[in-house]
């Protein structure tokens, strides 16, 4: 079995928190929506030298014009060369700008966020960092978030 198939099998059945409801807010039409990216790739800006430890449910804020991003995810178990060649394979900021220019979306948010995936301490994320992260984007009048993994 190939490397990716093995990993998909290994992590595919891991437990996840249950939510009583799965809310589906119906937002602004896409052509008017402000869109932000929230990636779980563990991106940090160059110079943010603090290492991302396993179990760290914090997040970083990425200004829309920043491209000096490093892959700080602790796990070595995914391809990194694609991200080295083209940031958009995990953080599609240039594609999002093009969609805004083309009128497909309303605008691109001023700030985007990154968490690190592969988490197990769900409670602190659900009760603390995730609501704070969401509020930051609410404060920026973001309508739509696209989540990207790694």
């Amino acid at each position, binding site marked *: 079995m*190939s*490397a*990716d198939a*093995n*990993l*998909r*099998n290994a*992590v*595919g059945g*891991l437990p*996840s*928190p249950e*939510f009583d409801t*799965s*809310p*589906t*807010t*119906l*937002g*602004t039409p896409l052509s008017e*929506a402000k869109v932000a990216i*929230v990636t779980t790739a563990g991106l940090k800006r160059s110079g943010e030298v603090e290492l991302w430890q396993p179990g760290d449910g914090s997040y970083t804020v990425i200004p829309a014009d920043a491209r000096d*991003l*490093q*892959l700080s995810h602790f*796990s*070595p*178990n*995914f*391809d*990194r*060369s*694609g*991200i*080295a*060649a*083209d940031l*958009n*394979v*995990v953080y*599609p900021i240039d*594609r999002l700008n*093009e*969609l805004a220019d083309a009128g*497909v979306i309303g605008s691109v948010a001023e700030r985007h966020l990154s*968490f690190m995936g592969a988490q197990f301490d769900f409670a602190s*994320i*659900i009760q603390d960092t*995730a*609501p704070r*992260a*969401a*509020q930051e984007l*609410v404060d920026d009048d973001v309508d739509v*978030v*696209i*989540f*990207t*993994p*790694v």
Partner: protein
Amino acid sequence: MLANVFEQAGITTVNIGLVRGQLETSKPPRALYVEFPLGRPLGRPDDVELQTAVLTTALELTSRDDGPFIVDYPEVIAEEGDEPASCPMPPRHDPDLHPAIDEARGIRNAYQRNVDTTGRTLLGRVASPDVDGVVTLIEQVIRLESGERLDDIGWDSATAIAAGQDIRAYYEEAGLQLADNVVGARSLESWFYSATEAGQLIRRAQKVMKEQGTADDFVVQYILPGTQAR
């Protein structure tokens, strides 16, 4: 999980997912499953057409309110194989140097060309983002290979794992310039760990740490990709 919290805050969300099983258990409101190589959720690097199509497909799901649902992206990027990339390497320059250090110095121009091309580097989490920084990390790994304990060389677990990925980043970015074939997912990873002196040094150091207990299990597990720890 994150998506549900963001929706409760009033933001419409859509998830791109690389592991269908995770989407099935975490049940985000709207999900697009992409069967692409792990590490490449938007598809191939520099494939603007595909990346745009994936992003647009995901964003258009925000018009639906019948979630949780999972939509499968119709295009699959088959595993491009774990075959190592073919990267012609410069000949040994200084036989008095450790082969991994001589090798790292030999590909410095390729690394720099890639930095100049992309304007970015993933190197620099625990070393300065240049050949001298990588050489200092390699010198530390040589000490680990010789049986010194992790704390004897002044590293904690997170530093050791990040150092492994820093060395890998330097080589993979040089490899993007050196490869004479199309670089699929994991082909540079396989090249680094199987065909370079530095990659094989890390493998040997991992084996020593595992067998002699000179580092904790976390380092032993994560200083190498699981696929390479055979």
